[in-house]
Every structure is written in structure tokens, then in C-alpha cells.
């Protein structure tokens, strides 16, 4: 591998493949390196792919991509040990073009997507680990791979190597993450008859449902669980900050089993057969944890730059948009013949002024706020459940009496003040 490329993209996930696709489409000579046996073989996601950002790369992709189900209902369950307060939105507009989002299985989807980049002219090489960036006079000029004679050169190297971006770290772009900046997610794919899924989740053919689980799903630790419908499988998972697992000494797979056995969940997955078990880290430090994302001859995109909106379980869409903007920037740099940090800074500016940067800023304090204040999950959600149970149980007490009791159960005036303050602060960190 001695030829020189316009760009080398490290990692064929949503960020890297988006970037390679648009670079090749724009006429650049681009190499896409993937360490797995095939794109997707190392990648894990709960399963929601957002239509808009994907269409920014490939219009009407849903007519040919291997998708599971378009989502028509999003449910949210606030769980206590043996109960849940649930709210949901279901809308038929999500079930037809242009759609809102889809469940996908990543091993299938990522291969299809990388194929599209190859069709545009990108060169994909699998089973190749990038060991380090080759740096000359402070400028990244290529990568050293684990193949024999594996040095490859390019004007720009794009790091799309995921949450464990050892490459960005070794360039000094960010420090090692702390356990409270990453969430460890474990999930399973459960086989279940298509018809049973549709009956159980109140769906028609080619309609899907996502359920997000809060509270007892994570035994009150900061995190969420999820249950998504695929064609003839379910994806079920649970993710908590690594620091939470450490603090409470909880085994992640036991937490997953706890969710699966929860009385609100077990009836939904009953009779299903586990197909695969997966674990992955999610970068959840947010805006404050983002390191440098541009340098001389180098750009960082996707999970490698901490681009995740944990509150809205968005990540792959931020990854795709960052990949697209990186490609746009590199094509401009190529035209100008300037690959300096100053020229590539266009990427950072475009990223931060768009929805990615805006959303990262909007939720910049949310993870840390909820992490420092566990009572949102371990006290307020159980309280909400108890209040609903009291209000809706018909036992001869008048509704006025019930309200009075619920109000009294909230605690002393001082505790109520604290709650009001907490609600205001929760509103403030997400407003």
C-alpha cells in the first residue's frame, strides 16, 4: 500500500462510511479502513436509525436498505419494582414516507452502507487495525496499519474509530475518559415470531415500536433500558454509566437479566429465544467531554468525538452528519490545496453551528446533573408510581381524600421545596 490518497477514513461505522461515501461522490480518492471482518462486525447500537440524516447522504435509502421496521410508536415507561407509569406517542404519519426513524440490525445495515460508499468509488479494506497516525512536523500525513508494509499516506486522515478512539487520544486530542463519561450498554437480540411481535406490540406489518425504560430498569442507577421491535426479533438492552456499575458493584449482564425478568417486560418478551449478546460503550460525557476535533491533516468524527445526545438516545445521526460535514470540508480543502488545521476548522464551525453542536450544548450539563442527583430515578419515579396507583385505585375514598394523602406522602414542606427545586433544576439542564 504505497499509493497516496486524498483521505484515509479509519472505521466503517455510520460516521466513517458517511464521510467516505460523500468524499468518493465528490471525486476524492478515499481509503476506508475497517478493523472487523466486515463493516458492522464490531458495531453495536440499540437499533434506531434516523431517516433525515441518512437521507442527507443517500436520498430514499429506505427503498433498498436492509431496515427492520419504521417506528410508529415511541413509548416511555417510568418503572417501579412492580408497576410502571407509561406514556407514548403513536402516529400514522411515521409509518409512511418520509418516515421518522427505523430499527436496524447494524451488522446487516453497516455492510450495505459501506457497499454504497464502495459503489461511489471508495476503497474499503477490512481486517485492518490502524496502530497509529504518522505525524511529520506536527502534521498528520498518514496511518500505520497492522498489515505488512502497512504505512499509507493521505492529505487528510479522518478518525472515525469509535468510542475507544485510541488514535485521537494518542494525538493528545482528549484525555482518557473517566468512568462517569461513558455508559456501558449490554443488549440481546431475541428471536420471536413476526406475528407475535405485531400482536403483542399492537402493530401492523411494517410498523415498529420503541420502548424506553426509566427507573427500576436500572435499579435506580442513572441510565435507561430499551426494548425495540425488529422484523422477527426484539432488541432489549440496558445502559448505565460505568461509574454507576462500579459504585453499586452491579454486573451488567445481571442487570440485563433483571430487566428481562421485570413484570412489566417479561410478558412482552415471553417465549423468545436469545440470538446474540452484545456489549459496547457509549460516550455520554456530552459537550464538556468533547476534545479537539480538528488538527493539521486530521479530523475526528462520530463517537470518537463524543457526539452523542444521551437524553434523546441519538448518536448514529450525529455521527452521519459529522461525517458528511467532514467530507464537505475536505473537498473544499482539496480544491484550495490547503489541509492545515485552519482550513479544516470549517468542519468544527459547521458542526457546532448546526443541530449537532446546538443539541450538544443544550444538554451539556444533563448527564452530570442526573448523575449527581440519583433521587430523580430512585425516589421520584417510585413516588409517581405510588401516586398513580392511589389515584386510580377505587376503594371508597373520595378523590379529594386521595389527593390529600398523595400530597402528604410527598413529605414535609421542606422536602416538597426540595422537590420543586429539583424539578426546576431538571428543567433548567434540558431547556
Amino acid at each position: 500500500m504505497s499509493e497516496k490518497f486524498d483521505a484515509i477514513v479509519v472505521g466503517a461505522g455510520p460516521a466513517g462510511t458517511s464521510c467516505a461515501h460523500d468524499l468518493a461522490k465528490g471525486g476524492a480518492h478515499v481509503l476506508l479502513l475497517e478493523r472487523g471482518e466486515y463493516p458492522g462486525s464490531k458495531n453495536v447500537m440499540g437499533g434506531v436509525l434516523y431517516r433525515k440524516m441518512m437521507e442527507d447522504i443517500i436520498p430514499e435509502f429506505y427503498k433498498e436498505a436492509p431496515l427492520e421496521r419504521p417506528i410508529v410508536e415511541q413509548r416511555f415507561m417510568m418503572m417501579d419494582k412492580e408497576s410502571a407509569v407509561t406514556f407514548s406517542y403513536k402516529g400514522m404519519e411515521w409509518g409512511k414516507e418520509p418516515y421518522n426513524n427505523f430499527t436496524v440490525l447494524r451488522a446487516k445495515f453497516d455492510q450495505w452502507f459501506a457497499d454504497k460508499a464502495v459503489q461511489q468509488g471508495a476503497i474499503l479494506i477490512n481486517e485492518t487495525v490502524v496502530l497509529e497516525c504518522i505525524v511529520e512536523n506536527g502534521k498528520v500525513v498518514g496511518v500505520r496499519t497492522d498489515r505488512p508494509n502497512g504505512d499509507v499516506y493521505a492529505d487528510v486522515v479522518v478518525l472515525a474509530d469509535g468510542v475507544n478512539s485510541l488514535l485521537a487520544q494518542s494525538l493528545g486530542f482528549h484525555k482518557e475518559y473517566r468512568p462517569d463519561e461513558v455508559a456501558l450498554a449490554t443488549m440481546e437480540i431475541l428471536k420471536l415470531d413476526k406475528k407475535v411481535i405485531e400482536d403483542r406490540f399492537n402493530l401492523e406489518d411494517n410498523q415498529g415500536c420503541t420502548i424506553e425504560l426509566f427507573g427500576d430498569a436500572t435499579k435506580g442507577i442513572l441510565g435507561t433500558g430499551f426494548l425495540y421491535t425488529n422484523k422477527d426479533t426484539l432488541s432489549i438492552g440496558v445502559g448505565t454509566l460505568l461509574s454507576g456499575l462500579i459504585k453499586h458493584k452491579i454486573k451488567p449482564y445481571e442487570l440485563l437479566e433483571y430487566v428481562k425478568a421485570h413484570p412489566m417486560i417479561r410478558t412482552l418478551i415471553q417465549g423468545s429465544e436469545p440470538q446474540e449478546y452484545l456489549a459496547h460503550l457509549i460516550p455520554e460525557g456530552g459537550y464538556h467531554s468533547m476534545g479537539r476535533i480538528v488538527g493539521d491533516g486530521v479530523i475526528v468524527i462520530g463517537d470518537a468525538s463524543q457526539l452523542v445526545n444521551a437524553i434523546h438516545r441519538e448518536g448514529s445521526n450525529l455521527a452521519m452528519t459529522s461525517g458528511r460535514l467532514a467530507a464537505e470540508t475536505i473537498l473544499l480543502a482539496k480544491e484550495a490545496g490547503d489541509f492545515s488545521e485552519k482550513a479544516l476548522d470549517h468542519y468544527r464551525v459547521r458542526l457546532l453551528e448546526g443541530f449537532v453542536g446546538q443539541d450538544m450544548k443544550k444538554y451539556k450539563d444533563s448527564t452530570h446533573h442526573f448523575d449527581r442527583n440519583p433521587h430523580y430515578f430512585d425516589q421520584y419515579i417510585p413516588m409517581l408510581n405510588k401516586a398513580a396507583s392511589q389515584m386510580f385505585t377505587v376503594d371508597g375514598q373520595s378523590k379529594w381524600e386521595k389527593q390529600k394523602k398523595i400530597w402528604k406522602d410527598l413529605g414535609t414542606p421542606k422536602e416538597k421545596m426540595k422537590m420543586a427545586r429539583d424539578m426546576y433544576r431538571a428543567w433548567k439542564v434540558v431547556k
Partner: protein
Amino acid sequence: MSEQKKYQTIEEKQYLVRFNADTKSHLHVKDEEICLTKCPDKICTIFCPAEIYKWEDIRMHVGYEGCHECGSCRIGCPHQNIKWEYPKGGHGIVFRLG
């Protein structure tokens, strides 16, 4: 409908996953002495999602063959005592679905 078994063990979960293990480990305990003398909790044996870290009386056994390459041990080790690399290209875990 038959009663579903209550809990699935980590061994049963790992059995569902395809691995193409390298002959060499990509994970190394930097200083075995630290695990023995300075780390009473050995928390990696708890939070590792594949339970690849197992304490055997005086040393940490690292079953790298079943690693999901998530990176938790590198970040979560309280003594930064784990050298973490990616397995050789094409090796390690191979997800087929999710």
C-alpha cells in the same frame, strides 16, 4: 406456555457470540502486584460485561478470547493497570446481528 427460565448466565450469553480469537492476548495487566496488594475490590471482575477477568487466588486471569472490546476495563480500572489494544485486524469478536 412453558415457564421461562428465570435467569440466563453469562456463560450462556457468551455462547451466543461468535469469536475469532487471536493466539495472542490484546489485554495485559501491567503490574500483577497491584491487583494482589492494592486492589481489594477487583472491580473489573464485576463490571466486565463478558466476565473475562477472573481472580485466581493470587493472580488475575484474563480470558481475552471472549472480550467484546468495549473498553470498560481500560477506563474503569481504578489503578489504570490494564494495557488495552485492539485485537489484530479481523480477529476478536464478530457481531452477526445487532
